[in-house]
Each structure stands twice: as C-alpha cells, then as structure tokens.
C-alpha cells in the first residue's frame, strides 16, 4: 500500500508539473498568435505559422472542460458523409489512415483531395522527384508536411469519427481540451518544432543532442560533490573544535554565500584566459581537434577523448558543485558529531581503535542515510547552477538550450526543456526516496 501511495504521489506530481508548464503556456498563449500575425511564414505547407501554432497548442479549445466535444454526426449531415464516402472510396478516418501509410506523393495528393472535399486545411505539396530518392532538403520538407498533417489529424480526428453518445457526455468533454492536447503531446514526447534556434527542427531532436552533455556533467558533478563534501565533513568532525575545524567552518560559511557565477567568471578570467594563466580550456566539452577526430570516427571512449573532456570539465564541475558541497560537508559534520556521541563509538574507543579509523569507517557508514536524503535537497541548486555553468563555459547542454530559448524567444523549446527537467527532477526525487529507504530500513514511510 505504501508503494501504491508513493506511486500515486509521483503521478499527482507529474500532473502538477504538466499543469505548471501548461500554465506558463496559458499565461502567454494569446501572445503566440499575436506575434505571428505580423509575419506569416508559409513553410512547409501552405498554412502560415500562426495557424500551425494555434493547432499545436489547440488554442481554439477550452482550457480544461469542453461542454460540446466534436463529433462527425453533429458536424456533418448523413447525406454529406455518404457523398464523401463515395468520392473517397472509404469513410474519412480510414482514408486518412491509408494515406499516412502511403508515400509522400500519395499523401499530399490525398490531402489536397480532402482539402477540396472535406474542409481540410491546405497542407501544400510534397517536393522532389517521384519514385527517386529526394534530396535532403526535399526530404526535410516532406517530413515536416507529414508531421504537420499528422498533428492536424490527431487534433481533429473526432470531427470525422462517429462517437457514441456516452463519449460526448463524459470522456470527450475532458479529452477535447487544450490541456488534454498538451498532455497528450507531452506523453508522446512531441514538443513541436523549434522556431528560431534551428527553424523547423523537431524540438525532440535538439533535446536529444543536448541531454547527454547535461547528464554527463550532472553525473560527474554528483560524484565530485560527495567526493569533496563527505571527507571534508568527516575531517572536520574528527578534529571538531580545533583550529582546522574552525578555519574550515569559517571558509565554508563564506563559500556558502559566494555566488557561483561570480566564481565562474573570475575562474575564466584568471585561470583560463590569455591575459593571466591559461591552465584550462574554455568553451565546449572537447577541443576542436579532438572533436574533429571523434567526428572522423575515433572511438568515443578512447583515453585521449576522455582526458580532453575531463580537462574541459574541471572548472565547470568545480564551480557547479562548490555551493552544494558546502551544504553536504556541514550536514555530514553535524551527523558525524551526533554519531560520535553514541555508545558504539565509546565501545570502539575502549577497544583502542584509532579515532581517525572510527570516524572514517564506522561513523561514515552511519552518516549515509542523511547524506542520501540531502541529495534531493541540493539537487535544485545543481540544476539551476547547470544553466549558469553551461552558459559561462558554453557547454552544449539543456541549460544552454533553455537559455537560448529565452534569448531567441523560441518558446516550444523553452517549454519542452522545462517539462523535461521537471520530470527528471521528479525521477531524481523518487530515486532519492528509494535509496534512502534502502540505506535506512527504518524509513518506510510513504
């Protein structure tokens, strides 16, 4: 039952996340079409960008509740439907399904027919020679056309299907809404096309390129975080009250208040520029020559590539983790000092085991649960910091993508990144909970 409750919480939080991102969209929705009416772009189909965006975000629908969901019977009289069936040789839904299975040319011709007969929008024509493989440009155009038509059909399918009355009274009222359309796209990982970062590229492709970099940086950062924080905290606990501990506490207090972007900037200026010392490279995750070698087919995991990437990541990772490692070090110190007062430590001391070994082996194990619980609380700082360091060090990750989306006003990308990051954070929370329960069997709370 506790597992079910936990699952329920995750689901509710997921819905919450989608509602938050949807609210961002809803707050700015009217601006979408307003901004585009000034500048209609007819690529790739004949429909301009405003119409396609209105379709994408289902702007013509109510937000959460649709009192009259569309239905073929309500939309068209029976005689009209009969005529369409004769013209097309099949009912509209089946005809369209067959179209999507056909090649690009048949698809665009079928869509043109539907445009004339059944009030479909004009999606434009497929390009390229028929029968022969099209050029890359034409293939991209045709793929965009296909996506465009598929999206339109997904949104308007129900206007051409006959639905039972009960559907119109219940489910249809919920599913034929703006939020349901948004949620459906999100679950399908269909975030639409990028507007300005790379026009007409699928947002999903952009994200797929950028995600590995961010995940790698975050993974390394997490390791470094605990590799710095835990020993430092334990060392302070072992020498509590002495000069080392006092100095470290003071330094940690100041470090905790230090803005990481400031440290990052200073690090670039003093450690990675030609004016002072050039100890570290800046910009990207690989040097140009190594990146070229990888593109030319060198193994991705060869020592040279890994070393180069590591060299590039030293500064970003250090800048990213120092605020969080301060938090970890202080919590570890507090937990360790608390454990040092317990009876088993006295027993260990009585057996003559050196203090250092007690702290670094026996006490450390007892500090594991609070440290794992801590991870979820430092995670937001790490994720927010990832934007800063990715922009500062121009690492091509999700943070940089989100920043570009804001700077170039590419809102499909911005929303997609927000939703994905939130879902990843949710998963991290769940993972943290599970690990916590694993490390500390007393914690079996929902």
């Amino acid at each position, binding site marked *: 039952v506790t597992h079910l409750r936990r699952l329920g*919480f995750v689901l*509710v*939080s997921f819905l*919450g*996340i989608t*509602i*938050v*991102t949807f609210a*961002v969209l809803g*707050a*700015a929705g009217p*601006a*979408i079409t307003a*901004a585009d009416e000034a500048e209609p772009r007819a690529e790739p189909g004949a429909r301009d960008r405003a119409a396609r965006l209105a379709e994408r975000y289902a702007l013509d629908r109510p937000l959460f509740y649709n009192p009259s969901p569309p239905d073929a019977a309500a939309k068209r009289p029976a005689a009209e439907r009969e005529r369409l069936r004769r013209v097309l040789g099949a009912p509209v839904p089946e005809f369209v399904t067959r179209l999507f299975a056909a090649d690009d040319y048949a698809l665009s011709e079928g869509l043109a027919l539907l445009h004339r007969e059944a009030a479909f929008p004009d999606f434009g024509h497929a390009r390229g020679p028929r029968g022969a493989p099209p050029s890359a440009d034409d293939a991209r155009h045709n793929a965009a056309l296909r996506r465009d038509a598929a999206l339109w059909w997904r949104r308007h399918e129900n206007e051409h299907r006959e639905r039972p009355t009960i559907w119109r009274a219940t489910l249809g009222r919920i599913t034929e809404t703006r939020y349901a359309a948004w949620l459906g796209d999100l679950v399908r990982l269909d975030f639409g096309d990028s507007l300005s970062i790379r026009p007409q590229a699928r947002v999903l492709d952009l994200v797929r390129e950028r995600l590995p970099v961010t995940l790698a940086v975050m993974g390394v950062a997490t390791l470094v975080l605990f590799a710095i924080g835990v020993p430092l905290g334990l060392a302070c606990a072992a020498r509590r009250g002495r000069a080392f501990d*006092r100095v470290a*506490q003071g330094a940690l*207090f*100041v470090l*905790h*208040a*230090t*803005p*990481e*972007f*400031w440290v990052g*900037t*200073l690090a*670039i*200026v003093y450690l990675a*520029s030609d*004016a*002072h010392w050039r100890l570290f490279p800046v910009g990207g995750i690989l040097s140009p020559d190594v990146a070229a070698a990888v593109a030319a087919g060198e193994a991705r995991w060869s020592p040279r590539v890994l070393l180069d990437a590591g060299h590039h990541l030293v500064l970003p990772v250090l800048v990213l983790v120092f605020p969080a490692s301060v938090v970890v070090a202080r919590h570890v110190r507090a937990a360790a000092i608390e454990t040092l007062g317990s009876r088993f430590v006295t027993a260990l001391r009585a057996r003559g085991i050196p203090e250092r070994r007690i702290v670094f082996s026996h006490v450390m194990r007892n500090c594991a649960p609070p440290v794992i619980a801590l991870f*979820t609380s430092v995670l*937001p700082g790490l*994720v*927010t910091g990832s*934007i*800063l360091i990715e*922009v500062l060090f121009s690492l091509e990750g999700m*943070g940089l993508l*989100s*920043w570009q*989306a*804001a*700077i*170039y*006003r*590419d*809102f499909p*990308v*911005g*929303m997609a*990144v*927000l939703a994905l*990051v*939130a*879902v990843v*954070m*949710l998963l991290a*929370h769940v993972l943290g909970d599970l690990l916590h329960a694993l490390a500390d069997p007393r914690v079996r709370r929902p």
Partner: protein
Amino acid sequence: VKARIAICVLVALAGLAAVAPLLANERPLAVVAGGASTFPAFAALDRADVFWAAAFVACLGMVLPRLGRAALVLLAALVAGFGAFAFEPRALEPPPPGARVFSAPVSYGPTNTDVARRLAGIGAPGHPLGTDDVGRDVLARLLHGLRLSLLVGFAATAVAVAAGVLLGVWAACGGRAADAIASSVVQTSFCVPAAFVVAAVQSFGPISLAAVILLLALLRFGTVARLVRQECLKVRAQPFVLAARGLGLHPLRVLTRHVLPNALVPVTVAAAFGVAGAILSEAGLSFLGLGVPERIPSLGRMLNDGRRVATLAPHLVVLPGLLILVLVLACHTVGAWLRDLADPRGAEPGS
C-alpha cells in the same frame, strides 16, 4: 557579535539603497541662483523612491528602542506624506551662470554615460570606483543595483512566506484532503527549478520586474509551507493549545493567537536564508540576461557586462560580486543567529 555586525551591515546597505537616487544622480541636489533655489534631484524622485525611503525608516524604527521607534515612525510618516505629492520629472535645465550648484556625491546616474572616460580605474576623478566599458559610473550602478537586489530579495521572500504560511496552515488544519492537495503542490514546486521556469516564460517575451519577483516567490513557497505545516502539527499537539481550546475560544482565534506565533519561529529563520537565496537567484538570472528588464541596473547584469572587458578592468567584475557576497553573507549570518535563538540546543559555541 557577528550577528550585530551583520545587522549593521544590512541596515547600512539598505540605507544606502534607500537613498541611492540622492547619492548618485546626474541632477544636482540643489541649485541656488540668486534668491531662488531649485532641487532637481528631489523633483525627479518618483513615488517608488519615496516609498523605499519611508519603508526603510519604518523598518529601522522597528529594531530601535521605544523612544527612537516613535521618532522614526514619525519620520517615516513625514517621508510618506512628502511622497504623496506628485512629482513630475522635468527635463534637466542647465544651471544659470553664477548659480551655486550642490551636486549629489556621485554626480552621475546609473545609466548616464561619460563617453570621454570609459573604463576608468578606481579613483578616477569624478568616478570614485571607475567607469565601465560604455562609460557608466560603477559606484552609481552599484548603489542602484543594491537597491534592486534588496527589493527583489525582500519582496520575493515576503510573497513566498505569505503564500507558504497560508498553504501550510491549510494543510495542517484543513483535514486529510487539504493535506494531500497541499503536499502534492509542495512536491510539485520542489520539482520545478526556478531558472528553467523563468527561461521558459522569457521565451515568450520579456517580463517585468514584478513578474520576476512573483516567479522567484512562487518557486520558494514550498519550503515555507512544509515548515509551517510541521510546526503547526507540533504546536497543536501541545497542552497549552488544548487549554486554549478548552476555554472555548474560537478555533480561528486559537490558530492566530496561540498556534501561529509559535509555529512562525522557524519561518523567520527560513525567511532570512530565503532573502539570501532570492538575492542570489535574481543576480544569477540577471547575469544570464534572463532577469529584470535591461533598463533597471542590477548587480548580476553589471557582472555580465563586465565579463567582456574583465581582463582590462577587473574591478568591473570583482566589485559587483563582492557586493553580492557581502549581502548574502550578512543575510546568512542573521539567519544563523536567528536559528541559534530559536533552537539553542543546536547552537555551538563560537559559531
């Protein structure tokens, strides 16, 4: 002792911020020509500036002992009354020849450019802390940026605490359904990172200062709500609440007079750290160019502008960062002090 220093630093910085438009302004404070005198800098103040000064004086009044408090509240009322006049910013007229001009200590505003002296170092004539790459006075920008940082820090925290307290009390006292709803709201707010939300909103178009404050607050109320809920549940289980209930007091009265004052103690600690966090977030966002609109001077933006010329003029990068560091450090010290006051068991000698 540390806490006292930190509070003094905060108060001093807030005071500087409150009177920033009088300290750094291209308009002279007073021009005396013959018998008539005009006050261009004062005339250009708007209501927000005056409100700031009044709020600062009122806040100062709260910490001082009683006599000083009365005097300062009076002063605040006076300042506020002064602000009720509608000031109309007029175009600056060159002072007539022979007039005695009393200029502001820094005779440049945060956006005025002194093109002839770009990238001046510290101690340049007329620019105590130098100028940046387009000739804006660094000290003037620091003072005005400080103002923005403090405004965002305190306003965002105030909104976050208000929302968090409401939600937390509702969760603690509203029954199981309320608790479930509130805790899923809180859980959701933990999963949504602030910077990405601001970036997503910015990807539709530029946002205003109020929107930045609201967003930062929205993403911080979760911690407060969780804290308030815990504390409310803890306090409600104590005998004196039962006694108050036994006396037949109205539940709302029990809540506001007996439960909340005791439950809010840890919230003040969280608020002190929250101010620091909000200041850092705002500076970080402005650093990325995702924060407040460009015309408002901000410490983070100064840092970003200075980045381009950091090798030529390191003070452009070092000074704003140091100011942020001092601000945040002061907030943290106050927070740690409050924490030790609220929970003396956790306090350690010398920390």
